[in-house]
């Protein structure tokens, strides 16, 4: 009961904190849109003059290819960036002292931050989707419920990674820079805006096992090919296992850092 009430109160507080970060959110949206529009122009130019096909990408499917990548990327990017720095900020602004003094549930605190980030992700993705729907014509072939599942599992997986980075960030400085580098490298290697076929084969094998690639390609399977639950089951299991592992690591890292903090004072 304590967990539920604290979770509600803290989620509201976290959403209010996001309001303070509204400029950052606006720039996040612009950033994602800028990437999307750039690649729409690039691929549009490539496919307009010929019937060329690059890694299964052609003039009929490049829009939905880019849209799926752009919609899912905020879920990953926000977990690695803003979510992890939201925890680190608590440490550097020393606002965690009063929280830990209070009777509030620590896990409600973790979950509230994750849920507030998820709400941000949904808002950004919806906004991008609406802008694209009004500007371009494309068809999403598969089930929206399945797409939602992929979204949720992707968020869950990477919130674990984000929280682990945040916990490490509370211990060692420079983690926000590492988060940024990780997020950029993953974006380059996961085929968010181009097919993995542009990479040499040796690198492609590595890229394909990345959870980011798995998440994006699963959403594309649903959106571009109308894949069913049975067809995407292996990928969903992969993402579910990754979620369990990443959240478990985050939990143990949190417990460890909490124990360490208790030795030197929160």
């Amino acid at each position, binding site marked *: 009961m304590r967990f539920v009430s604290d979770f509600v109160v803290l989620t509201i507080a976290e959403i209010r*904190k996001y309001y303070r970060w509204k400029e950052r959110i606006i720039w996040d949206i612009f950033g994602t849109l800028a990437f999307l529009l750039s690649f729409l122009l690039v691929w549009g130019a490539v496919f307009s003059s010929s019937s060329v096909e690059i890694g299964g990408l052609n003039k009929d499917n490049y829009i939905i290819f880019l849209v799926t990548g752009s919609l899912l990327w905020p879920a990953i990017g926000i977990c690695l960036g803003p979510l992890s720095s939201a925890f680190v900020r608590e440490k550097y602004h020393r606002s965690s*002292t*009063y929280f830990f003094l209070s*009777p509030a549930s620590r896990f409600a605190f973790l979950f509230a931050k994750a849920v507030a980030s998820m709400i941000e992700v949904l808002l950004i993705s919806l906004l991008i989707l609406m802008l694209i729907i009004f500007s371009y014509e494309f068809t999403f072939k598969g089930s929206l419920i399945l797409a939602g599942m992929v979204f949720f599992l992707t968020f869950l997986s990477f919130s674990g990674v984000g929280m682990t980075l945040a916990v490490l960030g509370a211990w060692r400085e420079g983690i926000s820079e590492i988060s940024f580098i990780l997020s950029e490298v993953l974006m380059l290697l996961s085929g968010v805006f181009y097919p993995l076929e542009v990479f040499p084969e040796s690198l492609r094998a590595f890229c394909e096992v990345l959870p980011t690639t798995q998440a994006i390609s699963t959403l594309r399977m649903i959106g571009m090919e109308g894949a069913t639950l049975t067809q995407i089951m292996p990928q969903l299991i992969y993402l579910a296992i990754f979620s369990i592992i990443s959240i478990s690591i985050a939990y143990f890292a949190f417990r460890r850092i909490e124990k360490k903090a208790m030795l*030197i*004072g929160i």
Partner: protein
Amino acid sequence: MNEIVVKNIVKYYPDKEYKPKGLKRIKNIVAPKKKKVLDNVDFEIKKGEIFGLLGSNGAGKTSLMKMISGLMETDEGEIFVLGEKMPENKKKIAGRINGVFARANMWWELTGKQNLLTYAKIYGVKKEKAEELIDFFGLRGKENLYSDLYSTGEVMRFCLAKSFLNDPEILFLDEPTIGLDPVVAIKVREMIKKRKKKSSIILTTHNMEEADFLCDRVAIINKGRIIKTGTPESLKKELKKEEIFEVEFDKVSSKLIENLDKLKYVESVNLLEDTQSLRIILKEKTQVNHLMKEIQRENKIQNIQKVSPTLEDVFVHLVGK
């Protein structure tokens, strides 16, 4: 009844001044060299008492406060707050304690009022209580600004308001007037004094006048050890065997202070702020004549008076020059 019992607390911190070379470096990373920051600390606080922890910077006051409030573990010894062992049973009493810590902050992305309302909900308190405290601390009109836009004094008042939210049975106040202007500091002290009726208060401060005004009992900590405990009055009485003078000169030079400080029978010499007067504490009464001779040899005295000891004199006497 004792609301806080602190029994033989010992605490070690990694020794950051220790910079080994060569292989010892690796050894220090694996098992860092530690230094004792609290040594056999022992005291009790009664219900409705304001207890002051006085000490120089790094004496261990804040660490001790964090251990009592359950924010830090002890290495040895035991702490009981409201009958519960800390920090193991902190959850059981977390709703009955509260406080402010010198370097801690509110959530700066929220307004002062949003901070108070969030904590009100966490502590299960009606929002009217938060509104009442906004008025009580004179923060009306400021409550809707983001917390990073407040002055130091306003931040402290919001933090104090937060700490009063749940009418705590134990209130931790770690340097509650640090960085405040004198007018606000006086107001805050009055508020703390009023709070005494409802809470037992444990307070750390560098300000001896504040401790004298607020505390029923004080403990003086030096290098992690409690070297004296008692009421401010009893501590001052103990010092009365010594003599304290305030001597007004034509001009006070640093050489004069240095020379007086070197005298064996002088406990301490302090220049009084914005004056040409020195506050001189003698180790023994019998040395007054020697002091007068020494002073008058090269300096012109405007005025001299014997004064009563303050808590600051006690502190200087106990902690050393």
